[in-house]
């Protein structure tokens, strides 16, 4: 079955209702709560002292490094998910984990486009490719480790 996008309609409706619930909570709280502002209440909280300087200061560069390494691995995950789904989902009567998969048998009857999953003959090659992909990323990971990205003091 090729997705038409209409299966996401309930999700969008749910998002709208979630937003309405959130706005409702804020409104009820704003309407029912008291509102007495004093100068001290308006100050940033700093354990009772008058605040010193601005809070939006310079901060440690390591947070940026972690964010960059995060991007590397997040993109890796994005590539691995489609592979994980499709690796065994092609139909072979004997070799798949469960041969009674209904989706696989129907797709064998009528050729779907794109064909579901990786053809059984290519599985070893694809697995090797994925392992190479993981190895390259592991090398990048080792480099970041050597460079001290993950050292926190």
């Amino acid at each position, binding site marked *: 079955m090729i997705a038409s996008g209409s299966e996401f309609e309930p999700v969008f409706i749910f998002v709208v209702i979630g937003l309405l619930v959130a706005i409702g909570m804020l409104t009820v709280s704003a309407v029912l709560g008291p509102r007495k502002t004093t100068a001290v209440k308006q100050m940033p909280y700093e354990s009772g002292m008058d605040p010193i300087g601005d*809070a939006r200061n310079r901060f440690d560069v390591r947070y940026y490094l972690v964010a960059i390494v995060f991007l590397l691995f997040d993109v890796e995950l994005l590539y691995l998910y489609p592979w994980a789904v499709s690796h065994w989902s092609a139909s072979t009567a004997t070799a798949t984990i469960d041969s009674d998969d209904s989706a696989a048998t129907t797709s064998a009857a009528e050729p779907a486009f794109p064909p579901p999953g990786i053809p059984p003959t290519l599985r070893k090659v694809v697995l090797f490719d994925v392992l190479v992909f993981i190895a390259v990323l592991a090398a990048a990971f080792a480099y970041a480790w050597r460079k001290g990205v993950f050292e926190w003091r």
Partner: protein
Amino acid sequence: MLTFLGLTALLIKIGLVVGISQGAVAYLIYVERKIAAYAQDRIGPNRCGREFGVPLGLIQPLADGAKMILKEDVIPKYVHKPTFILAPMIAIVTATIGFAVVPFGPVGAGAPRLGADWPVQFQIAPGVDIGIVYILAIGSLAVYAVVLAGWSSNNKYSFLGGLRSSAQLISYEIPMGLSILGIVLLAKSLDLNTIIEWQDRHGWGIFWQPVGFLIFLVSAFAETNRLPFDLPESEQELVGGFHTEYSAMKFGMFFLGEYLHVITVSFLTVILFFGGWDLPFVLSADQTSWISAIFKVIVMMSKVSLMIVFIMWIRWTLPRFRYDTLMNLAWKSLLPLGLLNLTITAVAAQMILGG
């Protein structure tokens, strides 16, 4: 397009999910206070409602909720107002809409029927077949709530808490994603219901992916900001962390969001590693009667409740991590372990199944 009948059913389902989850959160806070009390040899809340003959302080959550709404909603002068108001909304919306793809009972072919051809799906969006990716994506959006709250508050505690928290959340997202990949590879699907049905036929995920389960569990604790990973709001160092400046219902929304997150993560753990509604030898995907459906929902909810109690129990068992050990655990232990687990799973599946 949705028909009128479909829309009505959908709105009923959404109403049920939102209502039950908010009510459950209120009582989870009560349960957590009771567990905390017993863990520390106290009694916990037991007075509230005694005048009306309600035992055990059972209307304490209602009183807490009323207090949240009736308190003054302070918006300090130096905050960036739009993001300050937006942050708690993001927190609660992202925590709520994660439930859209969670199956609460049998879905798809195994769903019970009203009349001849009207299957009742125990899921808000039964057609979505990328449930795991959706939940991970929504979980990533939750980082924005923390970052925006920390930055907009213009408070040093909030700022530090927000920084720490965002680094923690994005760090643990990677081991979490990696740990799920093993089970996705075996079950061949990102659809949560298909994964449950696969476990129904082949045994629970925890037996196939014990290492993946451990990585997932640790990351789940970190993603929900629960002890031992509650550094974003470590009260001894950072007062309240990113929600220091928040009061009244805005604070309550962060609180609600956190507990909703705990429920979502418990559902995910049960669905991915404990078979969802599956009970070996008793319940299977072939049963489509209403009685079996109700039993499946009960089994599912019992497992989720046990998982939530487990999360609360851990809180009183382990002390908080130090920040460097926290980051070391994510990057130097869980990430290599996750990659290794995935590689071994893929190679072992290839060698055993061939092809």
